[in-house]
Each structure stands twice: as C-alpha cells, then as structure tokens.
C-alpha cells in the first residue's frame, strides 16, 4: 500500500511541475477577438517603460502598456492604429538618432508581389505621431511590395539604424534616413534580392558589426556578412542556406552558453534548425524532438523561468505550441505545456518583455490569420527564491542599442544575448538582456559589445535589478 501512495505522490508532483506557465490573459483590457500578427516592444510614449506594440490585420495597431495591474491600449492616434491597413510586421529603432524609436509598420494586402497600400514609418513630434512616408519628399520611396518581417540594422555601428524589409516576391528594401529623406539603399548594399522573405534577425553573428540572417521561403536563406557597412551573402559557405525548406521564424541564441550568438531557424512544416558555428560553418545540433516539423511561426529564445537556462518557445499556428529548455552542451529538453499550449490557437506572432517590471518575462502571443482570436499573455511560474539580472544598453543617442550583444560572465557560464533588433516571425522583443540566475552562481560581470564592435566590461554587485548601461 505504502508503495502505491509513494508512486501516485511522485506522479502528482511530476504533473504539478509540468505546469510551466500561468495564464495572465485576463489582465489584457478589451481583449477582443481580432486578427493580430507581429508584436514589437518599445517605449512608444517616452515614459521610460516599454509597451507591447501589437499589429492588426484590418484591426487597430495597439500599444499595450502595463498600468494598474492591467495591459491597456494607450494609443489614441489614428495614424498609429491605422485599422484600414493590414499590418503584419513591426520593428522599432532610432533611425534619426533623436533617442525615440521610430516604428516601422509593414502592411501587406496581398500574398506576394505588388501591394496597394504602403508601409508606415511612425515618428513623433510634440506627442503626435506622424508617418515619415507621408512626407512629400519620401513618397517616391514607398514600399509597394508585399512583405513579412522587418529588422533594424546599425550597419555602420554609428547608432543610425536602417530598416531591412523582408519583401515577398519583390526586392528587399533597406531604408535609411539621409538628409531628412528616406532612401532605399538596398541596391548599394547588395541586399536587393528577390525572394519569399519571411523572417529576419540582425546582430553579432559573424563579425563585430551587425550581420543579418534572413530565413526565406521558396529559396535559399541569406546570411549577410557585414563588410564595412555593406553586405555579402555567405549562407551557402556557412551552410545555413537550407534551400528546399521554407523559413518562418528565427532568433539569435547562445545555444552552447559559450559567449557567442548562434541561430535558431524554424521552418514551416520542415526541420527546425539550431545552428551553432564550428570551424567557419554552422552545424545543426537540434535533436529529433526539437527539429520535428511543425506549422511554426515565431520562435523565441528567452529565460522565462529565471533558472539561468534559456527556453525556446515555438509558436505554431493551428497546432500546439512547444517549449524547450536549452541545457548545457546544447541539449534541448522539451517542457510539456498545458497552459500556453494553445492547440486551437492561430498563433501569428509573439514577443517577450518584463512589462510589469517584476523581474520575470511576460510572453504575449498574437493570434489571428484565418480565425479571429484574442491575445494571450503568459508568465512562467517561477521559484520564489529565483534571482534575475536585466541589462539595458542605451546608445550614445539615448536609444536602445538594438543589435548590441550582452554577455554575462560568471563562475558558471559565459552567456550572450542580443539586444533584439527584430526576430521571431514579424516580431521584435524588448531591448533588454534578461538573465535568470543559476544555483550557486557568483562573480557576476557583464560585457557589452556595442554595434560598433567596441566592448565595455561592468562589475555587477547586486542582483534582482535592471542595470542601464550607456554607451560612451
């Protein structure tokens, strides 16, 4: 009898442990069913806190801010909400070096090729948003090609971001501001390829400057190596071209906890990749559970449960989401989801941010596409003794240093994270490196590699804080 009791007790403990997330969706105010796609995280009202920017496909774009225990839409301006356009991709970064992150809304009213309505590039003046593309001198450079994801790239490392627009069935665009005018410099930078653009990330992948990895459909992926601000596609040489698979979501992750960023790439109904660089080639080390084909959209690498090991969240559409923990030596261990599985969810995008500033990441999931669904919000059930450290690099112009790399150095690990410039599918995460702390971990230092390749080393004397580091 005693054995039976112990046996069932152990099973019960196991089941309790399996509940990784708690569902916080109820705190989202006016959480109506809608068609949502990409999500970005930026400070849209310049109050020092981040908001989730949620795109709407024929529905308003939202700026969800955490106020009084609720996630509320704080945007009331039409040019931002723009419900008549169909927005799917979004990324924010400071393109004019004024400290405010301009927001690129990628609109798509057709699957591929020529589209009717252009994208928007939202800036702010006197608390009023306006669309830079609506200014007369910018109208000749509208993006009238269907697209998907966008990513911010500080290609010269001077804090002046450009925006890579992953178009579908037309040339890639790379927008920058020159003499108060938006210009597409894709041709000059060797980026104007025509493909089925899907997902894109930028950061320190190969060089000390911002490189770009673009996961494409019906064509090879691109790995653009930064060569003095211009780019060369080296995907074939580095073995990430994955020609006959269809890219969907991608993220940068330090899979080996070795102090460098490697690449996660989710393929639509294909093998998902966990590429780690070895001897000048990327090797896919994803195990059979990890690489199992699924209807993937966004892929996120983040430490949700503050245990010091990153998880990988795979957001699938009309198929259960999946979650893996990356253990030492690149071992992917699946975490069974009940809450957050969303077997009937039409996931289209997702992003993480510590939106309530409690030291634990929230995961916001956008849903829609072929079925109107509400947003969902999750947070990991965290051990109450867990600790965290959040590093927030700010560049010389007062803007988030998207594309910079933060590396946590301790007695146990050398763990790099990118300051997200755009990732997942259609999305962009908060511009903060969030670390949970491992058991018996000590001797904390943080190294920032800025977008110009220069490094700063900072001693960390206390945990459970967000450290803002300004570029000198």
């Amino acid at each position, binding site marked *: 009898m005693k054995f039976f009791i112990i046996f069932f007790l152990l099973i019960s403990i196991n089941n309790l442990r399996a509940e990784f997330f708690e569902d916080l969706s109820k705190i989202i105010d006016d959480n109506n069913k809608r068609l949502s796609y990409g999500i970005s995280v930026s400070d849209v009202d310049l109050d020092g806190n981040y908001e989730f920017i949620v795109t709407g496909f024929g529905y308003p774009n939202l700026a969800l801010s955490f106020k009084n225990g609720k996630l509320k839409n704080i945007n009331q301006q039409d040019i931002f909400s723009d419900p008549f356009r169909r927005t799917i991709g979004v990324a924010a970064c400071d393109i004019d070096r004024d400290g405010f992150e301009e927001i690129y809304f990628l609109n798509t009213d057709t699957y591929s090729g020529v589209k009717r309505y252009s994208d928007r590039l939202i800036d702010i003046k006197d608390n009023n948003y306006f669309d830079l593309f609506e200014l007369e001198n910018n109208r000749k450079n509208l993006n009238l090609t269907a697209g998907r994801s966008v990513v911010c790239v500080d290609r010269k490392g001077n804090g002046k971001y450009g925006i890579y627009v992953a178009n579908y069935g037309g040339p890639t665009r790379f927008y920058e501001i020159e003499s108060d005018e938006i210009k597409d410099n894709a041709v000059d930078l060797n980026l104007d390829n025509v493909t089925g653009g899907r997902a894109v990330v930028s950061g320190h992948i190969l060089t000390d400057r911002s490189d770009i990895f673009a996961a494409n459909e019906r064509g090879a992926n691109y790995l653009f190596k930064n060569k003095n601000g211009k780019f060369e596609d080296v995907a074939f040489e580095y073995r990430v071209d994955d020609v006959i698979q269809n890219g969907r979501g991608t993220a940068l992750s330090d899979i080996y906890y070795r102090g460098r960023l490697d690449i996660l790439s989710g393929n639509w109904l294909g093998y998902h990749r966990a590429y780690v660089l070895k001897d000048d080639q990327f090797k896919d080390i994803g195990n059979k559970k990890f*690489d199992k084909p699924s209807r993937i959209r966004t892929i996120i690498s983040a430490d949700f449960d503050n245990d010091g090991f990153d998880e990988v969240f795979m957001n699938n559409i009309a198929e259960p989401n999946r979650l893996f923990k990356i253990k030492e030596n690149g071992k992917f261990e699946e975490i069974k989801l009940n809450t957050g599985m969303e077997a009937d969810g039409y996931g289209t995008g997702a992003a993480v941010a510590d939106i309530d500033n409690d030291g634990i990441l929230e995961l916001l999931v956008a849903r829609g596409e072929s079925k109107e669904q509400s947003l969902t919000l999750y947070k990991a059930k965290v051990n109450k003794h867990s600790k965290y450290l959040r590093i927030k690099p700010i560049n010389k112009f007062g803007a988030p240093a998207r594309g910079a790399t933060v590396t946590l150095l301790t007695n146990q690990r050398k763990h790099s994270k990118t300051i997200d410039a755009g990732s997942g599918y259609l999305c962009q995460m908060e511009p903060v490196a969030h670390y949970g702390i491992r058991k018996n971990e000590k001797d904390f230092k943080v190294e920032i590699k800025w977008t110009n390749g220069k490094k700063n080393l900072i001693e960390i004397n206390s945990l459970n804080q967000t450290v803002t580091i300004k570029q000198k």
Partner: protein
Amino acid sequence: MKKTLSKFFLIFFALFQFETIADEKNYHKELITDWSRIFPDQNRNAAGPKFFKYIIDKKITYKDFKEFNKLYCAVSGSLIDPDSEPNFLYANESKTKEKICGNYYKCCIPCSCDIMKYSEVEKMKHKFLDGLKEFYVFTIKNPCNKKDFPSRVNKDYFCNGKKINNDQVYNLNGRIVIGLLHKGRKCKKDDIDFVKNHQVTGRFCELRNNTPLENLEAGMGDIFIKLAR
C-alpha cells in the same frame, strides 16, 4: 514480494519521468541539409545518380547506405518522404538478362514503370564502415553521346565530354548507377506473377509503357526516358 514491487515501481517511475530521447540518425534531414551541395545549380531533374554518388562517397555503414537510398527517386531526382512505401518490381540484369526483383522507392508511380522499362540492374560490391557488401543497383547506359540529350537535365552532372563524369556520378562497367534496388534477388515465378498483376507495376505500367513518349503527361519520367532510352 515487497522488494519486487518496489523495483517495479521504481523502474516504471523512471520510465514515466524520463522519456527516452533516442537521437537516431535523421537521414532525410541530412539530405535536405546537403541538398544545395548535391545540386549546386539547384537542378535535380533526373539526377538520381547524383544522390547515389553523394551517398556512396560517404563514410557510412551498409545500414546507413540503404536508409539514405530510400529517400530519393532514382528516376526523377526528387526527395521522397521518409515514410513512403516502395513498389516491389523487377528489372533485367545487364549481363544475364535475368529478372531481378526487389523494392524501389519512388516519388510517384510512373517512375516505377520507367525504371522497369528503361533501366537495367547490376550487381555491385562496395566496402562500407562495417565491411564489404554486395547489392543490386539500377543503371542506365552512357547517355553522353546522345544528340537529343534532354535540355532540362544538367549534362555536366553526367558527362565529361562523351565520357561518364566519374567525379559526379558512379560509373559501373561503363553504365551510370542511378539508385539502389532494395532487397534485390533473382525473381521467383510468384514474384513475377505478383509484379505483373499488381495494379501499378502490372496494369498501369503496361498502359504507360505502351504509350508513345510524346503522349506521356504524368511525372518527370519523360525527361528520364529521353535520358535513358
């Protein structure tokens, strides 16, 4: 009794807790990963021989060799889903003209007909990591002298001038190896009856193989036929 029970529950619990993650070799994924290496110009039309050469050049076991060879179509050059079922069929052996039976993994059923009609099998020996093995392979004659070499096939894959390009494809006694006949053996009477009465290798193939080439519409086979006939 108590000891046995406790052992049983401990083992059961361990199994329950730790689902085994046996990371077997994923042959299909490996071919997908290396696809752009096998076909640098991305033209895989009728390029089963390229797959065969790529696989035989690997340092692998005989089991690996057989598994890899289940995953592409020797006729069309297409990749095949890992769970696909083969057709049991025969082809004539080059030397003896005897019928050799075995399994053929195909992308679509017309390819089974084409391989029966336009290829011949040969016995081949090769040393794998686990020793020397003998098996049957499908072969076609050297197509490099053809004036009507199919334009949709990359000739450089197959030919070096009028000779077989030994760097790109496997040359066996002056013929190009296009794929593996799985579980190949001399046919018995029952085998031949089975093949002839099967709805694909019998009835359908009879129809297809008596249709003039210009009237063939299904599959990639017409390209292969032009290459192999």
